[in-house]
């Protein structure tokens, strides 16, 4: 099934504002989704590392790993910069 992943900040330079990823209907670990994304865009590896890219699932910032299913909202973004 298709999961539409969204990107904010630096990762959007490479992935655009969103990208569709084929994932199992039962879901997959967030870490695995991350690996698939970086595999498809090797230039993103450096960006993810240098700019502290984090993920949010259903609008909650995730530290550690979680299971991600196609019905969830998944986003990756670089560090915040407000004010």
């Amino acid at each position, binding site marked *: 099934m298709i999961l539409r992943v969204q990107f904010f900040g*630096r990762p959007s330079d490479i992935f655009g504002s969103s990208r569709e990823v084929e994932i199992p209907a039962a879901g997959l670990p967030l870490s695995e989704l991350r690996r698939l994304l970086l595999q498809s865009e090797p230039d993103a590896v450096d960006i993810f590392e240098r700019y502290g890219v984090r993920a949010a699932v259903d609008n909650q910032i995730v530290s550690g790993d979680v299971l991600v299913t196609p019905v969830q909202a998944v986003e990756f973004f670089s*560090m915040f910069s*407000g*004010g």
Partner: protein
Amino acid sequence: MARAQLCAEPFSPEALLAGFLESRAGDGAVVSFVGLARDAGRDGGVVTVLSLDWHPVLTERSMAQIAQDGETRFGVSELLVVHRCGEVAPGEAIVFVAAAARHRRDAFLAADYVMDRLKTEAAFWKREHGPEGYRWIEPTDNDRADLARWST
């Protein structure tokens, strides 16, 4: 009361200050901060527009949390955060923070604290656009050092 507002259109800091002064509950000290978009980048290059990408949920939530923390931590009676999103022209206000308190030090500290947290913890992604394209603006070491002052 702590309030946080995301604002897609240019806003007037003086109008916000006027409203804030009216709503304050008899307190004597009001500190405000206005951050304005500059026409030169950190490297001195021309900035034609600043864009502030934002998140449909996390941005307002992070602003509300920071405003609430500022109010609670320093016991101020009113705290307001207004933050632009989208395209900001040089000279326009990016952010307005106001804090009202009985004692002026609390108002100064609350506004200062809220600004430090917004810089690194408000869910925005900032780009300076110029003749040669855009570049992302991340918090500086100074911004991180400013934030670290509050962790004691």
